[in-house]
């Protein structure tokens, strides 16, 4: 057997890298083995990059090194952001990934001109369209999450028609280019139209739908990388893209199920418009409110407490105060758990990361299906900054826009306490009957301040 050529050695390195990537994801199945997973991924990535740098096609290293340094300088701060900024960071990294894929696709087209066959052109145009729309779409999502752009859905009449026409134009341009790849002037137009479509895709989507949108953009970013692998005939990219794409797709499906909505409904449903009709019956109903002192007394005398956090906890940065409350209650012998809804927060798993950052042990973070059977035996359900995910109307009121959405059944607990700034409806603008129940106590105030007050009362009362 002949010794391996340099190119075969590089391919071998790619195969090992890809195997390590799969192991990395496999080890992410539990928090105990997850750190090993990251290490496997890192080794795989280093191996692939080093092998690539040995490629004989590379004749000039200057710009590669400059770009790698720039990438590291940008990447390190992006890796050190605060945990509350993780959703927008994730959106930004989808944008970076898609940008890279689109740039390479564009460069390949111009390098191969005028000898581009139909198959190559199909791959390139599909790759560039998806990469470009994911790039701008992710930037818009990041802007909304960072609150540079308004988080509410921005809609206008005939929006879906206009958006789909723009996408249609991109597809028509791609079709034309497939049969006439030499019409190079049309190529930048196709890129531009795809970039515009990305903006139009995400602007009508509201903040509460961000977990689905981020997951979907993740799937697109993966798909564009896989398609790039097709263009370059690079199987490492095909596999990594397929893994990333399937991850994004699975997360999107989980998020959609957790809201009882379809992809189409999230993308084109404009959640914001449903509320207007839903807000019809506005009778005066009474709520019972309680002070921090009363809340502390109830919590202190409880045996079991389930805390239900939502995006409001993240906004108020209340997670560290919540940890203090957790510690105080645990010290008194109260059994405290956290009930986590899959779409609580702005991205999949958002609440878990925030609570883990606040040093709450992860075996106390229980997902919806596991915690729901426990609510009937729960003394106090404490809702902090969550609204729609606890709304019993989702189970009972067929006219409610969120009817059918699985919820955390806090209404089954013996006492419900909800910390809320005011009685204004939540993000989706839907009134929550939970607040008018006899067993519900409203704790009006800022989540961080209120939890702090409860902790103080509990400490003083000892």
């Amino acid at each position: 057997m002949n010794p391996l050529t340099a190119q075969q050695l590089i391919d071998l390195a790619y195969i090992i890298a890809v195997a390590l990537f799969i192991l990395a994801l496999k080890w992410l199945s539990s928090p105990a083995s997850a750190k090993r997973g990251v290490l496997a991924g890192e080794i795989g990535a280093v191996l692939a990059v080093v092998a690539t740098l040995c490629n004989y096609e590379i004749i000039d290293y200057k710009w590669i090194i400059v770009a790698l340094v720039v990438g590291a300088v940008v990447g390190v701060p992006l890796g050190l952001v605060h945990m509350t900024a993780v959703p927008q960071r994730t959106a930004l990294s989808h944008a970076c990934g898609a940008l890279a894929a689109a740039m390479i696709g564009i460069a390949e087209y111009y390098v191969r001109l005028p000898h581009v066959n139909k198959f190559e052109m199909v791959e390139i145009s599909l790759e560039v369209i998806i990469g470009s729309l994911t790039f701008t779409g992710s930037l818009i999502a990041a802007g909304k999450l960072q609150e540079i752009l308004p988080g509410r859905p921005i809609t206008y009449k005939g929006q879906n028609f206009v958006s789909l026409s723009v996408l249609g134009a991109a597809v028509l341009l791609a079709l034309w280019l497939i049969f006439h790849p030499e019409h190079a002037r049309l190529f930048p137009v196709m890129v531009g139209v795809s970039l515009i479509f990305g903006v139009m895709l995400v602007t009508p989507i509201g903040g509460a739908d961000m977990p689905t949108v981020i997951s979907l953009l993740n799937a697109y970013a993966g798909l564009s990388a896989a398609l790039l692998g097709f263009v370059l005939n690079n199987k490492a990219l095909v596999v990594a893209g397929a893994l990333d794409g399937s991850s994004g797709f699975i997360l999107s499906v989980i998020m959609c199920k957790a809201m009882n909505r379809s992809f189409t409904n999230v993308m084109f449903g404009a959640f914001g418009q449903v509320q207007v009709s839903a807000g019809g019956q506005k009778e005066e109903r009474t709520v019972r409110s309680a002070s921090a002192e009363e809340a502390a007394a109830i919590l202190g005398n409880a045996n079991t407490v389930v805390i239900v956090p939502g995006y409001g906890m993240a906004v108020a940065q209340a997670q560290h105060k919540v940890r203090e409350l957790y510690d105080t209650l645990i010290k008194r012998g109260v059994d405290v758990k956290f009930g986590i809804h899959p779409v609580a927060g702005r991205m999949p798993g958002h609440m878990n990361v925030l609570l883990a950052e606040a040093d709450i042990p992860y075996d106390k973070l229980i997902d919806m299906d596991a915690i729901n059977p426990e609510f009937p035996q729960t003394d106090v359900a404490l809702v902090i900054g969550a609204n729609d995910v606890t709304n019993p109307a989702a189970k009972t009121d067929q006219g409610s826009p969120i009817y059918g959405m699985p919820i955390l059944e806090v209404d089954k607990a013996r006492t419900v306490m909800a910390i809320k700034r005011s009685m204004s409806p939540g993000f989706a603008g839907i009134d929550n009957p939970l607040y008018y129940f006899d067993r519900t106590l409203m704790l009006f105030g800022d989540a961080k301040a209120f939890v702090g007050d409860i902790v103080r009362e509990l400490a003083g009362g000892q």
Partner: protein
Amino acid sequence: MTSDLINNLWVFVLAAFIGFEVIRRVSPLLHTPLMSLTNALDAIVVVAAIIICGRHKSTLSTVLGAVAVAASFSNMVGGFLITDRMLRMFKTTRTKKP
């Protein structure tokens, strides 16, 4: 050219199935680190960017390649860094108190 397409489709379909099976088992606790880790793995496009940038076919391809190297490498560095940071925060009741 078409046999390449078919080969790549084979790889894509099999990899997607592996992806589904592996990722379905990821604990919902870790969905945020999952996303940042797959982002970092996806940044493997940096290898394609390095070749485009380094083989210097034209100024345009070098510039586009350099942008792609910077964008994807920032993803790789940042993605692994933040995933590692997040996973370090996940502790159990047993490991929490020394």
